């Protein structure tokens, strides 16, 4: 300890303090501040660049997602449209079928009615013709049969037999 104090030089202490403090302020002003500022700036720049890259990446991902979404939507829309078209088609076909059926039914009914009426008319005509024919035949037969007196007498007698007086 004593040796240490003996070795202590006030002059050296003075010079060291003076020179060191001067060096400290000079370096602070002309070296450390610019160096640290430059390094900070550089680091800040790198950080910013990384951040913007990250941001760009994110944006890209967002855009991709958007695209995907749009594509999906478009696909869904297309599907919907196709489905609708298919529905319309089937509906149209069904409608047409129904309509045709109704028309056909109507036609059939009409035809049937026409046929029926024709048939009735034909039958009526046939009946008429048969009647007139029968009348003719009957006329002729009667004419033949009643050409003689005895036959006429016999008939009158038969008729009178049949016609009981009640």
């Amino acid at each position, binding site marked *: 300890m004593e040796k240490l104090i003996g070795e202590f030089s006030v002059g050296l202490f003075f010079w060291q303090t003076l*020179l060191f403090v001067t060096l400290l302020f000079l*370096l602070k002003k002309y070296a450390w501040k*610019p160096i640290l500022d430059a390094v900070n700036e550089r680091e800040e720049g790198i950080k910013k660049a990384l951040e913007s890259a990250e941001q760009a990446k994110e944006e890209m991902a967002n855009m991709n997602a958007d695209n995907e979404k749009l594509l999906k939507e478009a696909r869904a829309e297309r599907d919907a449209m196709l489905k609708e078209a298919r529905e319309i088609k089937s509906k149209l076909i069904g409608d047409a079928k129904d309509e045709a059926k109704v028309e056909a039914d109507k036609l059939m009914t009409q035809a049937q009615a026409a046929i029926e009426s024709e048939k009735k008319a034909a039958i009526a005509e046939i009946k008429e013709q048969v009647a007139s024919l029968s009348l003719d035949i009957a006329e002729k037969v009667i004419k033949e049969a009643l050409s003689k007196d005895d036959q006429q007498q016999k008939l009158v007698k038969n008729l009178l037999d049949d016609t009981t007086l009640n």
Partner: protein
Amino acid sequence: MQGKRLIHLLFGIAFLTASFSAYASDPKKGALTPQDRKTEVSAYVKHHNLDTHDFGLFSYTGADGAHHQIGFPLPVILWADGLHVFSSGALHHGESVVASGDKYFALDTHSYKIYETDASGVLNYDADHHVTNVAPLDFSITKSVFMIMLVSVMLFMIFMGLAKSYAKNQSLPSGVGRFFEPIVLYIRDDIAIPNIGPEKYQRYMPYLLTVFFFIWFLNLFGLTPLGINVTGNIAITTALAVITFLITNFTGTKDYWKHIFDPLGHAMPWVAKLPIYIILVPIEVLGIFIKPFSLLIRLYANMQAGHIVLGSLIGLIYVFQNWLGGTLAFGLSFAISLIELLVALLQAYIFTMLSALYFGFASETHDHAVEHDGEVQHL
């Protein structure tokens, strides 16, 4: 570019020759006994670690037996009832008395300090070989001061260059800056921010960076064979520790002082705290001073010890005077040199690290109740 390289080469050669010549012994010395050689080496190591008034590069004993020292003198600035300025060359390494104004000064070759004497230059010693003459206030530009100036200029040039290279080179370092920039960033990211915190570290950065490079450079210069031992000087480390001490306490927050004078806070009523504080507060107050004291002692002792060990091991080569001992001592001193290279960096790191730690304590502003659990008294 060519000129720069030439300068490097010259410096390299100068260092090499200096390292060889510094310990080169004269053939005549073969007549010395090993005991003589030991005392000579011991004196040499001691001399090497002391601050001197001239910058000695190397010395040798000429064919005529005279001791020659090669180097250059530095200005001596003394205050003894007036300013006395003269070149240290006039002292002739303690052989001459210098008359300046109405005073006479002589160098004590034992402690390398200048004392006031009479015209004949007689130094009086007491029983412990201490000089009893009056010592003037010595503000000389000694070897250490010269080295501090040199290192300051070096640091200023290097880091100003680095700062300028950013402007020129789109925020990228160039040249030596490529080597120093990672160190600057290391101090910021691994010393300042973890110890002080990301909000407040910026105001301490200039000091931490300056003190780190200052100590590191001076430590490295201490490993050159020029006998520079700046960081192994108690006055230097004291000055550095005093600055750390002042910064710590002048930037201390309310919490820092509360921690010292009222560490328990609202945990207890004041009646209960009083007997504890009678013991605790003096310890805490003592801690304020012990922290920088341990800083200055650690740096001084490490560097001084390194110099003594290295010097002694190199000296051993000359003490042994045989191939086996010489080789062993050489290998050992080489290994220790490598360790000292690491220590030079490590001590700069430790000083910076602990300074940052103390600044961290001083600038802390967080909840006391939480922070107190893992408390360690750092000395």
